[in-house]
């Protein structure tokens, strides 16, 4: 969505958006009678202040990277995948299911469980991709609807299929677990797990596939101009489906990280975890490039994790961070007006 902007604008707009978001957050704190400096200090110490908090923050960043990559991958092909939330859920449940159903050595079991998450997410995204490619049905609506179908289906599976009418499944055995005793002792027993390596690897794969392969070129080309791509002999429909499937696979992997790492089990969700929706913000803020997504995911991980400590240390309710994130999304989305103002400023200076 930044195609029409110059390079420096592409970097400046997200940075300005974040600053504006934090300023609005400070104003909200001031108006409701809190000290914004205390609030943000608490946020920082709650996310980076101690080994335990750093571990928790890294753990929070992991699914954000996957969700951001998922949204961004579809974006680059001109598709808006709001269904990351649902794809993440089915990936979560599928990975836990495989983790519980088999008894295998870890070298086979863990990759298999992770792969199950990716496949489930990919399948869930395949449906909107197919409908878009074959019937020109708008993917935004279909993916939103698929989110809720996933929520209800997964809750049903957890309750009646994977567990014996319980609200949670059993824990996945050690052979399918991403848990890391090494990181746990390193970070004073946080829930940090090996998933962060997979997330970083996924970001590299994202970069290589999109920027260095013919497939990636075709996908991006379809995103720029479908008609020109078609005229150049590319199969637009195939690329639309492929883009959704890969996007869904990233999302499903994010779910597997939660299922096999953070929690180690599946449970009944009353509402969405929100990671998938935050992924939209991560992708937008990261400018849909791998390095930007990692940075944006880190920012959101810090905000989300730090927010949990804010009520204890400064009295500020956790939801302040939701407000800040919403404002950041508003400003990134309204990048046209920021770019316009930047240009005016520049002209004024001359």
């Amino acid at each position: 969505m930044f195609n029409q902007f110059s390079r420096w604008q592409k970097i400046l707009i997200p940075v300005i958006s974040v600053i504006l978001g934090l300023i609005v957050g400070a104003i909200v704190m001031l108006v409701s009678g809190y000290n914004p400096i205390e609030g943000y200090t608490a946020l920082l110490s709650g996310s980076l202040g101690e080994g335990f908090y750093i571990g928790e923050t890294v753990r929070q960043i992991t699914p954000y990277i996957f969700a951001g990559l998922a949204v961004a991958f579809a974006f680059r092909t001109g598709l808006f995948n709001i269904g990351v939330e649902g794809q993440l859920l089915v990936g979560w449940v599928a990975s836990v299911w495989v983790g519980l159903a088999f008894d295998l050595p870890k070298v086979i079991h863990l990759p298999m469980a992770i792969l199950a998450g990716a496949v489930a997410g990919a399948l869930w995204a395949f449906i909107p991709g197919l409908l878009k490619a074959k019937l020109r049905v708008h993917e935004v609506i279909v993916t939103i609807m698929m989110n809720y179908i996933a929520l209800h289906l997964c809750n049903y599976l957890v309750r009646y299929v994977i567990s014996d009418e319980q609200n949670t499944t059993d824990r996945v055995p050690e052979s399918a677990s991403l848990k890391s005793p090494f990181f746990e002792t390193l970070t004073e027993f946080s829930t940090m797990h090996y998933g962060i390596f997979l997330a970083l690897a996924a970001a590299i794969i994202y970069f290589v596939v999109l920027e260095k392969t013919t497939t990636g070129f075709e996908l991006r080309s379809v995103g720029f101009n479908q008609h020109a791509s078609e005229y150049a002999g590319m199969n637009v429909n195939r690329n639309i489906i492929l883009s959704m499937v890969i996007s869904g696979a990233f999302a499903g992997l994010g779910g597997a990280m939660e299922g096999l790492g953070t929690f180690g089990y599946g449970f009944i969700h009353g509402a969405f975890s929100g990671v998938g929706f935050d992924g939209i913000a991560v992708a937008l803020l990261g400018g849909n490039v791998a390095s930007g997504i990692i940075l944006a995911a880190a920012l959101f991980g810090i905000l989300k994790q730090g927010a949990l400590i804010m009520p204890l240390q400064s009295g500020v309710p956790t939801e302040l961070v939701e407000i800040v994130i919403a404002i950041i999304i508003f400003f990134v989305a309204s990048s046209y007006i920021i770019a316009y103002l930047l240009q005016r400023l520049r002209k004024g200076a001359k």
Partner: protein
Amino acid sequence: MDVLTAFEILVKSMLFASAPLIFTALGGVFSERSGVVNIGLEGLMVIGAFAAVVFNITFASALGGATPWVALLIAMIIGGLFSLLHAVASVSFRADQVVSGVAINFLALGLGVYLIKDWYGAGQTPKIPVPFYYERIPLLYDIPIIGPILFNNYLTSYLAIFVAIIAWFVLFKTPFGLRLRSVGEHPMAADTMGINVFKMRYIAVVLSGVFGGLGGGVYAQTITQDFSAGTITGQGFIALAAVIFGKWHPLGAMGAALFFGLAQSLAIIGSSFPLLADVPNWILLSAPYILTILALAGFIGRADAPKANGQPYIKGSR
């Protein structure tokens, strides 16, 4: 359970579950007919529920029986004001309308829960003192058999159906409605004819906020009777589904909302019906969403969006 009791439970729960959906879906129809996609319906319901609940708790002792009605008015005003954000971003700032809608959802929930925690010291408000109650309609209630079923419900349910008919009249039988629709189909043509595209879109988006707020207010004051992060969980998206399933038509959206309300109530009480006891309840819970996808795919009649839906209008561009 005999047939009549079953029928009574079904009709009543359908009417009360669908009223908030009808209001919100009507908001969606106005916004999308003018060419502005509104994913933020969920957030608008959240802010409406928040406003209605807080007002109800604060002013119940002063206003007495009129409280929930005044609270609905407040919810409409707050919803309308809140939707201005979406209007400014998507009409004036040319933001991606889907992204702006997502931001609305985040902001509404964040702001609502933040303020609740700040004001009440907990993530959940107390129960509202004066909720809506079932009301008997004089005379009509005395009709044998159907009277007690159809004319002993929340007044808001009748209001929803009545407002849907008015919305249909406004959209399809008045010059204002024609202008609003033309702006959503072909903004440039409308602009050439002297219609102020920006103004029409602003009005439409604010109307969606007013209706979304009303829907949220009705939901909170009939069904949950308090406000927390879990008050509105997906009702806004069901309303969005109703907009599409109803083919962007006020009466269609009303029908779809009634049907989705029925599906929701079946999911809750379905197990007491012999025929439905064997259907896994996730299918009933997901029915609105599955049907909407099928409708979009053309399996249940073709659903075509307004032509310029989702595109910002930039003066002078072709």
